[in-house]
């Protein structure tokens, strides 16, 4: 296939390297250096998709980031990615792309019927069209809209690509490598400042690549190349192409996405696909340039209508003609530059200029080239459905209200220029108070909030000489303040053609009897009529108009549509544009892939994984692990073909009959030292702590100031001024911050230090009637009898030469001990316990058996201490001291907390003694009551009681104190279960607590 729209010569592409690619299943080729858009246009392909709402045919409108609608689905190396702009995607060998928004195909599209049923889709169609009847939504509207709309399909496969994050600091971040970016970077670099220069495109130079200028006896491009190669040699400068600074956040932090591999057929080994840079800059120079804005006329969304600057870029950068019979429709001199470029390439353009008698150097040149220029002329409407075939044009009156007689002329593209809009997105995101510049009919940055300045075209400066002067000067001055160097750069001689003022005309009136759609926002299909309806319906604030009509929303962020939308609102409202104001520009300036935002934090890397020192033993012994916060803990140890239920039952039963050992390293541990340590504990815990003797442990509950239980655990007095606190695994970090808060801010007079020692100690719980026998073997030199080490006692011991802490505490409700050794000896300790315990039938047990044991004992844990319960609810009121004050005590006397029928923890047993009760189920009185069925409580934890061999649950139940013996129903709508149950005491096993003291 020949590239019928490729010029014989010219452009910055590499004609020696052909690249083949596929679009909608057809094979094409282009050259290295092409974008998908330039290669398609070279092949004469202009129909690229369908519009979002009306499914009108869509072509190319721009040549870069400003492109509102040439969005495709990309296929690369076995993966697919939606929302790719064909104008930004660089061509690579084997690239495949497909149209989006068309079903079943781009040429025959069912949704285009919307175009003929416009009544269905007026402004606010999201809000009013598909709402009634309600029952239609799930079955008819939603599936149809989903199929017919949407901008592509996200892959549901795991993304195998690698994305990285990088944090960087610099003196100056410069966003854009056009004339202002290069000049400011150059003078700042010469002053020794640390500079990052970011360019969104693959080529540096911005408009210098396409404009006909001369700088220091070089072409714009040559000058740009020489500056770049000089900057590349400087160690204080980082230059990045394919890098979009898309967001300006607080305290001068900007985020940039660098596309490292997107232009390659496949990511190189050990390379990331993209890298996200978090850049903290001392100063930011915004040199993002400007975007040409369209003039609004009938059917201005027809493929073949495009920005005149884009047409010029396709010729100068890619050697591609966007048409062979071009019409240039302009209100300023920029259109002439495009026409001149056409003419130089042997194509005869016609210029329609809305101005009456403009005169300038550029216009003179066009006239000298014999270009056909029609003054006071406008395009009334484009004709042609899938591609422009002709244009209806007419003379327009001086007041721009009346159209002359309409004539039709043949053309295959309409290049439109409505003057230039500074790209102020980053400045606006930074909090800059933008102001309206009457001269250019656009907003420019005003008063800075952060350390940011805007240069060149982005600041509304449209001549090269002025831009360069200003940028050299600012780059020098700002860097001088940081580095104290003042190395002046000599200013080059600049030659550019002078232009004259533009015409403030932006919208062509409709001819009598015609009802052409005139689009403002090409991405979101918002036409002039939609805005008119919104205003008629009473929307006034520009922010409301935006949301009601979708003008300037989504990925486009109003790049081409914003100002014309404002012009329209201000015209109807009879206000000036600055009084209407613009909507908020939000990051990202242009879409960023989710992968880049997530970075390396995927799967197992999304949080740290903490393992106990005994982890490898668990692995060797068939442990099945479970995530407990950031810890990996054995859930059960699988024997032959046991399942979770069988294994945990075996392990729990062995604790009740023999002895088991559980890895409790994950418990939070806080070392507390100082003369006021007891006083701190006394204020933090609800019970009394001042008289705890050395060598004794005590169970404690701590509250938040609002009276809700925060955590529980045991704390042991190691010596006079030294305590060892344990917390639950989940709350360890919060409890430490809590203690630090009170010590540093509330009671700084307390002489206490706290430090986390969770990772310093490995812990093993040895539980069961035979646990003392195991302990005797572990510590033959210590007196571990009931007298020597009573319940809640503490001692130090010698574990085969390793110093150990022995606590007689129990979570399982059995006779039990916890042994701690320094982490490095954890594995040794564990092996010894297994070794000496063998003759007593010791088995390791995991978190599932641990839960079973504590649930049937009625010991509370995280599922009861869930941030909603007070001590009474958990039957912990016995631990509330009446004598002293403590954190949260005052809240407990609040009315609701003292209510007679307050919720309380109870036990729940199914009447059939067989059916397991799902956690989270509700307790109700009558299972047949009409909805909403009054809920009396909820199941907090469930297990299979190994003691009673039937299911048992804990529940938090309203008036639980008086409900023991009642018959209720457990309902689980999620699992579709209704289970008749009896309410029993939460202490289902050993209610008197004799075993722990035995």
């Amino acid at each position: 296939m020949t590239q019928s729209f490729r010029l014989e010569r010219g452009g910055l592409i590499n004609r020696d390297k052909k690249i083949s690619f596929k679009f909608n299943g057809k094979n094409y080729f282009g050259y290295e250096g092409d974008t998908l858009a330039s290669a398609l246009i070279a092949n004469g392909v202009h129909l690229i998709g369908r519009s979002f709402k009306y499914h009108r045919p869509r072509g190319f409108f721009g040549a870069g980031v400003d492109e509102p609608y040439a969005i495709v689905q990309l296929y690369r190396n076995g993966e697919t990615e939606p929302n790719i702009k064909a104008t930004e995607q660089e061509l690579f060998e084997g690239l495949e792309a497909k149209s989006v928004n068309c079903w079943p195909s781009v040429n025959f599209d069912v949704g285009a019927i919307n175009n003929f049923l416009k009544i269905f889709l007026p402004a606010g169609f999201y809000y009013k069209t598909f709402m009634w009847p309600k029952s239609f939504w799930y079955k008819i509207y939603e599936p149809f809209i989903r199929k017919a709309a949407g901008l592509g399909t996200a892959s549901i496969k795991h993304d195998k690509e690698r994305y990285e994050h990088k944090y960087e600091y610099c003196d100056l971040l410069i966003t854009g490598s056009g004339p202002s970016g290069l000049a400011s970077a150059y003078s700042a670099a010469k002053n020794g400042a640390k500079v990052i220069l970011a360019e969104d495109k693959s080529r540096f130079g911005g408009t210098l690549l396409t404009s006909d200028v001369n700088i220091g006896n070089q072409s714009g491009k040559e000058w740009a190349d020489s500056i770049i190669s000089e900057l590349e040699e400087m160690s204080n400068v980082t230059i990045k192409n394919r890098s979009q600074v898309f967001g300006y956040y607080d305290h001068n932090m900007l985020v940039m996405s660098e596309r490292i591999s997107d232009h390659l057929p496949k990511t190189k080994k050990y390379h990331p696909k993209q890298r996200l840079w978090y850049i903290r800059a001392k100063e930011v120079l915004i040199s993002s340039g400007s975007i040409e804005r369209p003039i609004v006329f009938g059917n201005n969304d027809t493929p073949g209508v495009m920005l005149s600057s884009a047409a010029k870029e396709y010729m100068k950068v890619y050697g591609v003609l966007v048409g062979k019979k071009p019409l240039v429709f302009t209100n300023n001199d920029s259109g002439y530059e495009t026409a001149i470029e056409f003419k130089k390439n042997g194509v005869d353009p016609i210029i329609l200029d809305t101005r009456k008698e403009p005169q300038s150097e550029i216009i003179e040149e066009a006239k000298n080239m014999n270009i056909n220029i029609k003054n006071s002329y406008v395009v009334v409407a484009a004709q042609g459905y899938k591609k422009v075939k002709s244009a209806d044009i007419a003379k327009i009156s001086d007041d721009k209200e009346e159209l002359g007689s309409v004539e039709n002329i043949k053309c295959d593209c309409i290049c439109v220029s409505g003057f230039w809009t500074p790209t102020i997105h980053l400045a606006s995101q930074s909090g800059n108070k933008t102001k309206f510049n009457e001269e250019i009919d656009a907003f420019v940055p005003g008063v800075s909030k952060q350390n940011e300045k805007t240069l060149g075209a982005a600041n509304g400066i449209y001549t090269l000489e002025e831009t360069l002067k200003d940028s050299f000067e600012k780059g020098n001055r700002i860097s001088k303040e940081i580095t104290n160097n003042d190395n002046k750069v000599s200013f080059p001689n600049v030659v550019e053609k002078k232009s004259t003022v533009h015409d403030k005309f932006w919208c062509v009136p409709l001819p009598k009897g015609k009802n052409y759609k005139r689009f403002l926002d090409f991405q979101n299909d918002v036409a002039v009529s939609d805005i008119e309806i919104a205003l008629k319906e009473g929307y006034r604030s520009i922010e409301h108009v935006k949301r009601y009509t979708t003008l300037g929303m989504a990925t486009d962020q109003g790049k081409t549509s914003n100002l014309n939308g404002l012009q329209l609102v201000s015209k109807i409202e009879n206000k000036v544009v600055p009084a209407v104001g613009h909507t908020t520009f939000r990051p990202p300036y242009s879409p960023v892939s989710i992968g880049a935002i997530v970075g390396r934090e995927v799967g197992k890397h999304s949080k740290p994984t903490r393992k106990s020192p005994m982890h490898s033993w668990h692995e060797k012994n068939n442990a099945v692990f479970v995530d407990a916060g950031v810890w990996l803990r054995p859930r059960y140890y699988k024997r032959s073909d046991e399942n979770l239920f069988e294994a945990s039952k075996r392990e729990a039963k062995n604790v009740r009959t023999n002895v088991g050992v559980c890895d409790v390293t994950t418990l939070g541990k806080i070392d507390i030292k100082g003369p006021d340590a007891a006083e701190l504990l006394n204020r933090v815990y609800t019970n009394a702590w001042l008289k705890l003797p050395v060598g004794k442990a005590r169970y404690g509950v701590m509250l938040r100031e609002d009276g809700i239980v925060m955590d529980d655990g045991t704390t042991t007095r190691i010596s006079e001024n030294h305590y060892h606190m344990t917390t639950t695994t989940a709350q360890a970090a919060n409890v430490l911050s809590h203690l630090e808060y009170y010590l540093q801010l509330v009671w700084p007079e307390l002489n206490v230090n706290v430090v986390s020692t969770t990772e310093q100690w490995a812990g093993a719980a040895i539980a069961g009637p035979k646990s003392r026998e195991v302990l005797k073997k572990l510590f033959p030199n210590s007196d571990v009898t009931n007298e020597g080490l009573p319940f809640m006692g503490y001692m130090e011991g010698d574990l085969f030469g390793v110093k150990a802490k022995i606590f007689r505490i129990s979570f399982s409700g059995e006779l039990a001990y916890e042994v701690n050794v320094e982490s490095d000896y954890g594995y040794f300790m564990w092996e010894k316990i297994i070794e000496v315990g063998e003759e007593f039938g010791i088995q390791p047990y995991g978190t599932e058996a641990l839960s079973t044991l504590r649930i049937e004992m009625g010991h509370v844990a995280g599922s009861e201490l869930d941030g909603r319960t007070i001590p009474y609810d958990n039957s912990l009121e016995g631990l509330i001291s009446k004598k002293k004050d403590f954190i949260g005590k005052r809240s407990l006397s609040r009315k609701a907390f003292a209510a007679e029928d307050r919720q309380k923890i109870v036990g729940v047993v199914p009447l059939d003694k067989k059916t397991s009760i799902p956690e989270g189920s509700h307790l109700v009185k009558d299972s047949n009551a009409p909805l909403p069925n009054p809920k009396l409580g909820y199941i907090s934890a469930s297990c299979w009681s190994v003691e009673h061999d039937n299911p048992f649950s804990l529940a938090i139940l309203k008036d639980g104190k008086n409900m023991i013996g009642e018959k209720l129903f457990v309902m689980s709508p999620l699992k579709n279960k209704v289970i008749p149950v009896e309410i029993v005491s939460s202490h289902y096993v050993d209610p008197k607590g004799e075993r722990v003291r035995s």
Partner: protein
Amino acid sequence: MLHIKCPHCGIRSQNEFSYGGDATIKRPELGKEISDQDWDNFVYNRKSLRGKHWELWQHLSGCRQWIKVQRDTATHEIFKTLKANEEIS
């Protein structure tokens, strides 16, 4: 992301800190009688100011000190930071 000057460590990124609420709230003295209204004000009632606001942050992934930060809640500008034991003036 904010840049917060820890009075102990210097300027650090926000992700090293955790927020701790209004720094001007004083905890009532232990063991003193207090009305329901005053207690509610201490536990629950906050002004949610727009503008300059003294608030607490903890330098969690740094020195672990609680610090006082004067920040504009609308613009995020930070004017001053103090150590835990320094009085707000």
